[in-house]
């Protein structure tokens, strides 16, 4: 998988592409935790290019949300690809993570 990092003011936007599964989750976890450790408190994740997400991937977001809660930060999602949306619907991710259609909406609601 690939992770692209973008900034809008103090908001960090991570765009994911490829597969976020048991083999790539560890890399992604380290990356996103290092983003948070370097001071980012407001994160947007763009899923438009992500082809697949497994439970190992979901787990990372819950770890991240625990960590951000400690620091008073927030994370929101936007632009879910179809396969991601399907998984998010099954596990009802929307209960724990605000999900938006566009990046702009996501940033406004952070």
């Amino acid at each position: 998988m690939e992770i692209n990092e973008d900034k809008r003011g103090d908001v960090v936007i991570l765009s994911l592409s490829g597969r976020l599964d048991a083999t790539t989750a560890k890399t992604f976890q380290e990356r996103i935790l290092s983003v948070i450790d370097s001071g980012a408190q407001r994160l947007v994740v763009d899923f438009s290019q992500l082809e697949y997400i497994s439970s190992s991937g979901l787990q990372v977001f819950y770890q991240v949300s625990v960590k951000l809660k400690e620091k008073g930060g927030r994370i929101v999602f936007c632009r879910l690809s179809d396969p991601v949306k399907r998984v998010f619907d099954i596990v009802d991710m929307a209960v724990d993570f605000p999900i938006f259609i566009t990046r702009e909406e996501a940033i406004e609601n952070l």
Partner: protein
Amino acid sequence: MAFNDSERQARNLSALLRVSKALASEIRLDDLLQVIVEKAAEVLDADRATLFLYDEPCNELWSKTTQRLEIKEIRVPLGVGIVGTVAKTRTPINIPDAYADARFNPNFDKDTGYRTRSILCMPLIGNGDRLIGVIQVLNKKDQEVFNEADESLLAGLSAHITVALERARLIEAYVEKERMEEALKLAHDIQMSMLPKIFPPFPERHEFDIFAAIVPAKEVGGDLYDFFFIDDDHLCFAVGDVSGKGVPASLFMAVTKTLFRSTGSNGGTPGEILARLNAEICRDNDSCMFVTLFCGILNIRTGQVDYCNGGHNLPYYLHHDGVSLLQSIGGRALGLVEQSPYASGRMVLGPGETLLLYTDGVTEAMDSSETLYSDQRLERFLTSNRGSPPRQIIGDLVSDVRQFAGGARQSDDITVLALLYFGTTKRGEKN
């Protein structure tokens, strides 16, 4: 002179052959190190030999096998002293008089009471230009110094030593891997033995038929199923899928399975059971592992099924007119948020109707072109096989998924549970 040269060559060749044989027969690294230093000293006519291995993460050389009861570990940074220099420059060094050479560190002599005179030191370079270590022979016997012939002899010997060391390391890594796989297989067997596997599980019950199976992926996974009677009339059943893979997932699955039995046996609605189970799992779950779980309770007298879906794939309801998904009622996956609400839904199974629970190993099975088996295929399969009894429907479904996947590697556990309700009339007939 010519005669002497060829005589020496013959002697050296036979020495190399002896060493090569000795090296080939040792596969344990510790024993091999011992053989190497003994043979190197013997062949080179040296008083002693020391082998230093390269510790890549620390960028240091280390040695444990000096002769004469020296067991303390020596560590030398790359570039320091003679062995450090040889390792860094990857060039041999031949020194006739150690104390006249600025690179020589006399501290080792001071510590051990040894008196170093001549040194011949050679780098060991392995496959892919990797530095393996350094071999050093000290004090040529009879007060001589190491000459050019000794250099080429040690160079020849080094090639053999390098091969033997690399092979020993490969074997050690292989044995370690075998051991890991053996342990994983054991873990997996224990895990599977926790699931009810005897069918029919309740031969005296004629109101329903139940069957379940897990087709494990090569890597240990975290799927589970379970069913048991809470009281005479209520059968509790569940299918779950733990996040992630490998040992953590399998341990988490084992914990979940045990907790589910105990919380389920205490009764209540499926929503209450999952709420209690969730609270238990959340405790000390720093890694945010979670389990998606569907839990139902069948009243075997009426066919009523109360259920709660904790973030799992919704089961299929196979009825006379076709197949449909259950209504989504429940809560989030378990293990994530301690105070989560879990609602219970209700449906009624009529005689001849089936509930089919599964994990995403079914729908996400892939063929070699990475096409998914998909919900649509599952639904089509169930529609045309909805009249089959549980054991057959599951057997046929697993075959269908396998046939679809062809030879593609199964990356996730495939778990299916089917519950067919007969109603009480069937029992009446039997009586």
